[in-house]
């Protein structure tokens, strides 16, 4: 899909009777911070993180923000999803907790017990890589394949639990897409703690989502063969079903790629609900999806900077094309800034207990560097915020 030179930006559609009212948290891909905007796209709050994000930031129940940032000179900075630092910021942008590891990539999950699950790369031993199937022959990264480790780290940064993907995956089942590189396997791009304490993960290069048993490390369940194509962002919903954003990249036999948001039953493997819109809904990178308490679904079509909410019938009831200023260097004024992920928080969300300014009555944001704040605020003014 393409971006034209001139299009309606900001709020495009809004049915106040049908939406799940709240505020929207979004992490622009090219910025160094996170925005909170209201349903009309008006500025509510901004956190300056000081580094480019590697995935979407999330608000925690205590009102703090978890942000995964990229170290630009990390050892594997050329790999997609490279991160390096995980920050916990308070409402005013002050860093309360920091976890650094140059091999961190993609996402994280704050556990119910206060610890944090992170994903990092580790070199896969040659005895395993020789068995991994699929991918373009000879396309390892300088001869090596990088596998995923999920670690649970506590407040002091100690690793209290660790899971190495290559010790539990089956190279004959978890096969890399034929036109992807063999630089990483399986390329875990999203992790989520489930209600039962186990982990729900998204393996991008093998186009499967899986449930990992926390106690034994076994892969309890996998889904996706023939159904998913380089998905991103998988979560467990309150009803026990799984929601996943299927990007639809490298789809077999399709002459025109399209993305889907799929709700599936982990017990039966059946697709319960699917949202798609032909080629009008497609993002080959980034992206997220969230089931809202009223049964609607918030979708972030990352590459297009497009956030929208659909009801169960697939009717769009809210749509916002992100045009928030970032410190990006791209001078293409009309383009929508790409968004990693977006989340909606309703009025009863525990994390929104902080003082908030009514839109258009903002003052200087404490906790941010003066220079950044000044530039940002003048650009906000220019946009009419």
């Amino acid at each position, binding site marked *: 899909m393409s971006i*034209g030179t001139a299009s309606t930006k900001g709020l495009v559609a809004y049915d106040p009777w049908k939406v799940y009212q709240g505020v929207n948290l979004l992490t622009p891909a090219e910025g160094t911070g996170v925005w909170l905007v209201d349903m009309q796209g008006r500025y509510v709050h901004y956190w300056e993180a000081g580094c480019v994000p590697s995935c979407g930031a999330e608000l925690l129940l205590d009102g703090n923000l978890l942000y995964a940032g990229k170290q630009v000179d990390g050892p594997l900075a050329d790999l997609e999803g490279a991160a390096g630092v995980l920050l916990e910021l308070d409402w005013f942008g002050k860093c309360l907790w920091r976890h650094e590891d140059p091999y961190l990539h993609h996402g994280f999950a704050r556990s119910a017990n206060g610890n944090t699950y992170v994903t990092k790369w580790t070199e896969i031993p040659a005895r395993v890589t020789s068995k991994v199937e699929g991918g373009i022959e000879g396309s390892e990264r300088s001869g090596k394949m990088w596998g995923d480790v999920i670690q649970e780290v506590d407040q002091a940064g100690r690793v209290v639990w660790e899971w190495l993907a290559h010790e539990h995956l089956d190279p004959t089942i978890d096969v890399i897409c034929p036109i992807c590189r063999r630089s990483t396997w399986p390329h875990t791009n999203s992790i989520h703690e489930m209600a039962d304490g186990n982990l729900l993960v998204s393996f991008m290069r093998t186009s499967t989502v899986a449930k990992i048993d926390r106690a034994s490390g076994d892969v309890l369940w996998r889904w996706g063969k023939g159904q998913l194509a380089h998905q991103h962002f998988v979560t467990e919903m309150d009803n026990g079903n799984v929601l996943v954003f299927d990007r639809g990249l490298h789809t077999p036999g399709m002459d025109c790629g399209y993305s889907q948001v799929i709700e599936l039953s982990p017990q039966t493997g059946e697709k319960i609900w699917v949202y798609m819109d032909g080629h009008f*809904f497609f*993002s080959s990178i980034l992206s997220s999806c969230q089931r809202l308490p009223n049964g609607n679904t918030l979708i972030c079509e990352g590459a297009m900077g497009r956030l929208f909410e659909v009801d169960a019938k697939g009717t769009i009831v809210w749509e916002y094309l992100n045009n928030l200023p970032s410190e990006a260097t791209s001078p293409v004024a009309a383009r929508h800034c790409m968004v990693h992920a977006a989340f909606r928080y309703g009025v009863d969300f525990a994390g929104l207990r902080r003082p908030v300014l009514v839109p258009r009555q903002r003052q200087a944001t404490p906790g941010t560097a003066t220079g950044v704040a000044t530039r940002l605020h003048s650009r906000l003014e220019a946009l009419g915020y």
Partner: protein
Amino acid sequence: MGVERSFKLGVTLHNLQKADDGYTLFGPNNHDAWLIDIEGRVVNRWRMPYSAGCHGRLLPNGHIIWASQIHTAEEYGLTDDFSGLGGLIQELDWDGNLVWESEAPYQGHDFQVMDNGHILYICFHPNGILPDELAAEVKGGLPGTEQNGKIWGDCVMEIDRQGKVVWEWLACEHLDPKIDTLCPLESRSMWPYLNSLCVCQDGNILLSTRYLNQITKIEYPSGRVLNRYLRGRIFHQHDVRELPNGNIMAFDNGLHRYGEELSYSRVVEFDPSTEEVVWEYKAEQPSDFYSAICGGSERLANGNTLICDSVAGRVFEVTPSNEIVWEYVSPFMGEKRGLPTNRIWRAHRYSRDYTGFKDHILDPTRFPWENLIYGPHAFRKDFAFTIS
């Protein structure tokens, strides 16, 4: 809605100093062909008897030549792997009167009018079905996706003005299964899947062999393969053309790019003697320009390139330094596989002094209602709509 549905319609950008001038011909997926001026005003309209079997062009005599869709894949007993089907080539005069037509069985995608007036076209003809031993040697593609167990080899046919086939080229007789391998994610129902052709200055033919991720040049009339270009460097490309300077330009759609996990399209110009890419257009954020199918590019007299972003229904002009200086988003809705779409298969630009316009008046006031509804003033540039 889709980010494309938020596009402003009509001419959305026009840099008067840098853009070309002239008229643009295109057909939405319906029974119309439109000729618009640089401001986006309709100056001629042809109402075709049939929907587009993809392509149409203007001729130096002022007529339009058009491939019409008269059969669906289903009617041929084929699956919808076989797309872009036409079947009838028609020539209509400026006012839409039929002056010539010829059936072109199994014709699809592109065709070209040769200097001698014959028509060269691509078709999925049963003559080209691969014998089983050859089909077994063809590598790549998704296993088990043959068409009723057969691989259909594409064909190129030349018909004279009486509709008689005077020359035929069958892929199965000239391609080499050891070299010409299919993309691993595509169907094995076709080999190699031709979607465009171009007669070169030397009389030979450039073919866009889509599923092979390469451009293939064949000798005319012997049919043997002369060159294979950009093998594995362009992906599911379209509209391969020879430029007056001898270089070759192609629309690299970018479906199934090996080793890349971002979908984007680009237009490339390369020197056939060295296969070096001498110019390319890619969006600054590459995923901002992506047309998985169709797509076209045309070099203009002023050195700029007209690019047809088919899936978005968008035609735009870029300078050699990749600056967009003109953009038009089609407001005309056609239909593809039952769904409404404003997509355009290909767009052609003709200069003001094109010989085909010699005896005609290109006056938008001849189309008052078309311009009222679809012209530049029809689409206010500044409103944002809400559902309430």
